[in-house]
């Protein structure tokens, strides 16, 4: 990804909008008693489009903003989301995305990783309460939501950041010259 000041402004605007949308909307609605978590999918999409560096930096920044707005210990969300962004970026650098199902599947898998990461971090920081078995159900349902949310997020982000993408098949197709008589 070629990050110009204009693209950077877009990334910042999208990240802020994503965090506000999560805290004001997605966290406060429930399907099957579970609120969707948009943020891991957003960070995964950034990682898939921009690579490890973009994934890591956006993951850290989004996590920091969430922790600031919720007045929670700083660094917890950043640590988890930068890990998720790194894994998504690594996937993009090592493998080709051949199937349109890859981004939503990655969003699903990495949302699962993120939620387990939050849980692990809580255990490490000290935890004085019983954990309901419903946590497992909630995490699994959140991952399924991430599958459905990941698809439009990835497509929307790719559209918004198209000028900065190094390998954009749509743009490449458009640039191919027409061969007359072929």
């Amino acid at each position, binding site marked *: 990804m070629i990050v110009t000041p204009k693209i950077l402004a877009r990334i910042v605007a999208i990240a802020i909008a994503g965090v*506000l*949308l*999560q*805290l*004001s*909307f*997605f*966290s*406060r*609605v*429930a*399907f*099957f*008693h579970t*609120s969707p*978590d*948009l*943020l891991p999918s957003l960070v995964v999409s950034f990682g898939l489009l921009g690579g*490890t*560096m973009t994934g*890591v*930096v956006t993951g*850290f920044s989004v*996590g*920091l*903003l*969430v*922790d*600031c*707005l*919720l*007045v*929670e*210990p*700083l*660094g*917890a*969300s*950043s*640590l988890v989301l*930068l890990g998720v962004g*790194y894994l998504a970026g690594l996937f993009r650098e090592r493998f080709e995305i051949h199937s349109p199902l890859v981004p939503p599947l990655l969003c699903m898998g990495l949302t699962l990783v993120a*939620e387990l990461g*939050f*849980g692990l971090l*809580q255990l490490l*920081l000290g*935890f*004085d*309460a*019983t*954990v*309901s*078995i*419903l*946590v*497992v159900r*909630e*995490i699994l349902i*959140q991952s399924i939501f991430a599958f459905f949310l990941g698809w439009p997020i990835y497509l929307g982000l790719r559209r918004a950041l198209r000028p900065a993408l190094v390998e954009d098949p749509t743009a490449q197709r458009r640039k191919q010259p027409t061969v007359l008589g072929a």
Partner: protein
Amino acid sequence: MYRKQVRRRRAVLALLIIGSFALLTFTYGQASNGLQRGVSTIFSPLQEVANRGLKPARDLVNWFDSTFDARGLNSRLEAELEKARSQAVAGQAARAQNAQLRKLLGLDRKVVPAGYRPLTAQVIARSPTVWYSTVTIDVGSGDRVAVDDPVIDGDGLIGRVAEVTGGSAQVTLISDHSSAVSAKVVPQGVQGVAKAEVGDPGELNLDFIDSNRLVHRGEAVVTAGWRVQGFASLFPPNLPIGEVTHTSIVEQEANQQVHVRPYADLRDLETVQVLTGGWRG
């Protein structure tokens, strides 16, 4: 060139990981810092706009969820209605007697305990992960909200103020893993500590209940609100918390396990009241 890029990426990754651990180390268990207060102040107006703008969409989505729930609840409610009908007659007589007694004693009939000033607030944000149960409200220190102020809604206790900034406050809900509320079962007066069951905001555990004093399903749980030699509970007495759903006695322990369903719907909070002032104010 490629190696240089890889080295730079690794350096950024290492820097951010170390940064995250450093932030976590310095801010865990501490009060809100300048960065959080600044960011909250800047984003509070934006959050309020987002909250108002997205309310219709939120209501629509939650309506669908509630409709699914209502189907399952219907049969249970029918059975409860039968029981409630028989209790209603006795309840009406008791209410009339209660009204007379209150008039005689000159008691305030409001739910809000004496000395507290209720301050209405809107929930503007909610924690996204299952591991935290916190909400952000649109009133802060500028409105005389202080740390540890109890927060209620129309159904009962929902939590306490954990952090305050100029125009907003973070409320730790009673379903958060860090929450513990000194509570009693009425009418018996058996006391315990209501703690959360992480992942299930529809259930609390009432710990430290003596197994010799049996608690029954359907009994109400309210805040104990004790005050001893200068020490006091964070919550005033008799704020409704929830209803006992089931109890069990663990053989190895001398305590009863009491499960409580909170009266307040902790998943769907819109308007709440912060009880400012009170015996600490």
